[in-house]
């Protein structure tokens, strides 16, 4: 399992960890029932505080991606498609708002943006 | 506590071995002097043994007893400097045990000095072809008992942390006693001189010695009886004082 955190990105570390684990679950690298490393081991390997990894795992559990059992550890939860879709939607929205920010910065109009979108989306379908 | 004792003995081992060597050389040399009065180049010399033998054991005993303690006397100062003293407060050892370990080490050294002093007396007696002198042995024991005064160095160093300071202040504090002793000694010599003049008509070393002897013997007998109590009392006092100093946490 690969987790890469950036100290210089604006995003808090616990959030980076939970997003990355979510991503790994969503793209199938982590399957239902797989064991996650313990919070302490992860903290030691990434050289961060246990509180941070704990928070990441708590978020993942709250969002329904993992289950934690005291004494045993944390395991990937079986996914249902609704949750998956919701998560993907969330991610898409977040990315779109980034796109809009950039567009505004280089003074791209909404129509020009829509054109660009159609090109790229349509282009992707043709692949 | 065993660990603390081992530590201090380990630290002084080099100095102690050197002192031991020096002591053995000293004893050997004096013995050779005795032997040479009948087997060497002092043959025929009158009075060498008479003059030296009564004193030889005394010097040897002093060297043995003081020398054995010599390596140990700057340990407390070094402990403060190296922060070992600080560190020992973080260990699961009570102040009583810390103090007890220091006294134990000193005690071991004192015992070693005692044994060496006895050995010297035996060697000298053999070398001088004299019987082992029990008064000498008694004197050695008495001197050892009084050496316990030296144990005061432990609480003093715990208090002052620095040898020079401790020495200076002790000297100042004890000066009245020392002065009194000198004055008394002077008066006593005067008294003996008068008595010698009265009893024997002339004042020489021999007459002085004759006057002096009964007093000396009596004193020795008294000392022999009170010495163990004196030593024990002092040790308890110093121990209690040391524990108090350790508890004060001078930081």
């Amino acid at each position: 399992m690969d987790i890469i955190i950036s100290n210089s990105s604006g995003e808090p570390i616990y959030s980076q960890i939970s997003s990355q684990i979510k991503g790994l679950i969503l793209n199938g690298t982590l399957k239902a029932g797989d064991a996650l490393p313990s919070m302490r081991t992860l903290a030691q390997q990434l050289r961060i505080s246990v509180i941070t990894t704990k928070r990441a795992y708590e978020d993942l559990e709250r969002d329904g991606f993992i289950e934690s059992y005291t004494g045993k550890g944390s395991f990937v939860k079986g996914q249902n498609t609704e949750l998956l879709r919701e998560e993907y939607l969330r991610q898409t929205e977040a990315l779109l708002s980034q796109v809009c920010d950039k567009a505004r910065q280089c003074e791209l109009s909404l129509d020009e943006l829509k054109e660009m979108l159609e090109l790229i989306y349509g282009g992707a379908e043709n692949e | 506590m065993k660990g603390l004792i081992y530590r201090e003995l380990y630290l002084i081992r080099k100095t102690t071995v050197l002192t031991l060597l020096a002591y053995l050389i000293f004893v050997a040399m004096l013995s050779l002097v005795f032997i040479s009065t009948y087997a060497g180049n002092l043959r025929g010399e009158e009075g060498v043994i008479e003059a030296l033998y009564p004193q030889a054991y005394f010097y040897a005993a002093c060297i043995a007893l003081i020398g054995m303690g010599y390596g140990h006397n700057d340990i407390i100062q070094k402990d403060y400097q190296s922060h070992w003293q600080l560190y020992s407060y973080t260990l699961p050892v009570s102040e009583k045990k810390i103090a007890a370990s220091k006294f134990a080490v000193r005690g071991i050294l004192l015992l070693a000095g005692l044994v060496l002093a006895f050995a010297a007396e035996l060697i000298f007696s053999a070398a001088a072809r004299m019987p082992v002198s029990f008064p000498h042995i008694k004197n050695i024991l008495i001197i050892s008992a009084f050496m316990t005064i030296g144990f005061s160095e432990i609480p003093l160093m715990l208090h002052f942390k620095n040898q020079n300071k401790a020495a200076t202040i002790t000297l100042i504090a004890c000066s009245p006693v020392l002065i009194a002793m000198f004055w008394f000694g002077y008066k006593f010599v005067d008294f003996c001189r008068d008595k010698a003049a009265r009893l024997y008509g002339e004042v020489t070393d021999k007459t002085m010695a004759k006057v002096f002897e009964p007093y000396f013997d009596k004193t020795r007998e008294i000392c022999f009886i009170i010495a163990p109590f004196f030593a024990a009392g002092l040790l308890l006092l110093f121990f209690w004082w040391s524990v108090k100093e350790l508890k004060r946490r001078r930081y």
Partner: protein
Amino acid sequence: MNEYENAIEIKDLTKKYDGFTLDKVSFNVPKGSIMGFIGQNGAGKTTTINALLNIVKKDEGEIRLLGLDHEKDEFEAKKQIAAVFDELPFDDRLNAIAMDKILREIFEEWSTDTFFGYLDRFALPRKKKFGKFSKGMKMKLQIASALSHNAKLLIMDEATTGLDPVVRNEILDIFLEYLQNEDHTILMSSHITSDLDKIADSVTFIDKGKVLVSGYKDEILENHGILKCTKDEYKDIDPGDIVSARLNDFGAEIMVSDKAACSQKYSGAVIDNTTLEDIMIYYVNRGKKEWR
């Protein structure tokens, strides 16, 4: 074994010296965590640690170590505590083998195998006198002996100060390894905050004998920020939001203690993330509201 939630509990610790007072210092170190105890030289870190270990007698306050009273059950507690100082407290004339024989008789749970294991791992010679060790070697030796008697609590007073970054890194790895056991706790005092920025679970800042901030490191770092603006804009900032402000020729840098609220209040202002070092610097200068 007694159960306890906090490895260290300090309440209203007070100690008066001439010219310096530890004033009602209070904080807790939860079991299984590592706390960074941060402050300038002379701020009171060493005094607090000395009071914890009963090396100095406190004037007032309550201290519990591993659930035990630090005075009444002093020796019970100390059996499970290891203290590491910035200077090696072992005599220069001793060597590792002698030290092993000494400490074996002092700690019930001393393990010679563990000790020599660490010595080998740190590449420390067994027969060399300590006087010949380098600074890094001396610290590694102290840590080796601290970890060899099954201590549940490691208290370190400026242990990494004076070490080069490579050695510091090695030592931090050892601490992280130590913490893998949930029963182990570390209290680490330092003014090198870069180490603690990463691995500390909680931090306590102390300045001039008083605790300034104490809490989870992540929260503290998230809540604080450095707001940057022009000197004119600075005048519009509510003094209640400011910890302290640093003015230079080109603008103002202000530390705020509630980043979220401030980014709402002064929308559009640049608010940077901070480090523990910044927090220490800005808080220490809070007496002068503006400084250069």
